[in-house]
């Protein structure tokens, strides 16, 4: 996984396999009784759906796989979920809070 070069904007698509980098931590904060994301000099407060999406970002699942899991669980329209997922993850990737694992060369 290449974490060093980031000269171009990462554009996420259904086949991308997202993962949180080491310096971005999704954590349940017992004091505040809510999920939080810790990032460089920032604390983000994700909503419940964002938390579910991020918990599925393991660098193995593609975004399309994540969408399938959620579509089945909530019996919801996959297209709608994919649109929301991509928007959320692209926003995080733009801030370097999310990486995508590139396909190893065959």
């Amino acid at each position: 996984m290449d974490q060093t070069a980031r000269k171009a904007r990462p554009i996420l698509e259904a086949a991308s396999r997202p993962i949180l980098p080491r310096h971005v931590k999704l954590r349940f904060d017992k004091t505040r009784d809510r999920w939080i994301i810790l990032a460089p000099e920032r604390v983000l407060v994700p909503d419940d759906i964002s938390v579910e999406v991020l918990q599925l970002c393991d660098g193995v699942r593609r975004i399309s796989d994540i969408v399938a899991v959620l579509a089945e669980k909530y019996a919801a329209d996959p297209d709608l979920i994919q649109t929301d997922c991509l928007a959320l993850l692209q926003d995080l990737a733009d801030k370097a809070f999310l990486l995508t694992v590139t396909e190893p060369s065959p």
Partner: protein
Amino acid sequence: MTDQTPPVADFQLVTRAGEEGGQRTTYGIPLAVLAELTHRCPLQCPYCSNPLEMEVASKELTTAEWCSVMDELAEIGVLQIHFSGGEPTVRKDLTELVRHATKVGLYSNLITSAVMLTKARLQDLADAGLSHVQISVQGAEDGLADRVGGFKNGHAKKLEAARWTREVGLPLTINAVMHRQNLHQLPQIIDLAVALDADRLEVANVQYYGWALKNREALIPSFAQVEETNRIVAEAQDRLAGVLDIDYVVPDYYAQRPKQCMGGWGRQFFNISPAGKVLPCHAAESITGMEFDSVRGNKSIRWIWDNSEAFNTYRGTGWMPEPCESCEFKEIDFGGCRCQAHALTGSAGNTDPACAKSPLHAEIFARAATEAAEGQDRFIYRNFSGGTAEDEVS
């Protein structure tokens, strides 16, 4: 701090942390703490945010004292610690402190001038669990940058340390403190941040208290420079979306509305000085007559946060005079900066003159414009002996 970091912009995303059940509380559990480990620093930046009267090494908290402070912070529910100074890498125990932060679950950021870092030390810090490095730059090239920092070869060392930061896999923020004498290099500083593979750039115009106030006539930009800066930043933010996240702190003498300093006094953050004073912000000691509790006293940090006079005097909106009291923005900017109000009006309880509604705003704006046009460029360098004028430095 070596430089002025803008805690203002950093935590914009967490305004919800103070709300429960739709009901906004005046303050919550602090999110982050700025740990000023020392006031010692090899650089002498004329806009340093440290107080004019700095704390000497012999008064600094020990390793054990900082570790005990971190235990308490984690217990309260503080999430992040920013190791700053002075220059935090002056402390030989920095890696040990980072390791302890990691152990107790605090997310750690290092805010550094970087001139004393080696690759081995960065690797040790990363191994100890450090999550992020912020490196300051004083300009885009050696000549100007080293003159502003008052430190030979400093700029070159920073660039080297920035590359090592990325090589050991740590995310990098470049902090560029901007003023009249370096704003013309902003486009090159933006290019530099991209070339160094930084994720984020803070374009932070100097805020005028402490050392910066002492140097104001050498630092304050013209209004035309500010307008040009606004344009450069907006263009770069658009062009570099997804490549470099640019935070921008405007010089508030020329602003219409004051900055939301520290996310509101005593609302989300606090600062611990090298000798252990618990401060609502890093410049709070410039407010004369205000007393601050210390972690060396017999009170817990939680008690100090909830009950101390320093935190409660300007917390929330109850203390506000007009025009703040009836202002629709009072829960957005919380009346601006108390330290600036003190510095410019003589009372920290007045409306921040950066606000267009302040009766002093027009005067401040005019004074800034005059100083920018007529002020001399000579710096007074920051040091422990009250400052040294640039032309007295050999």
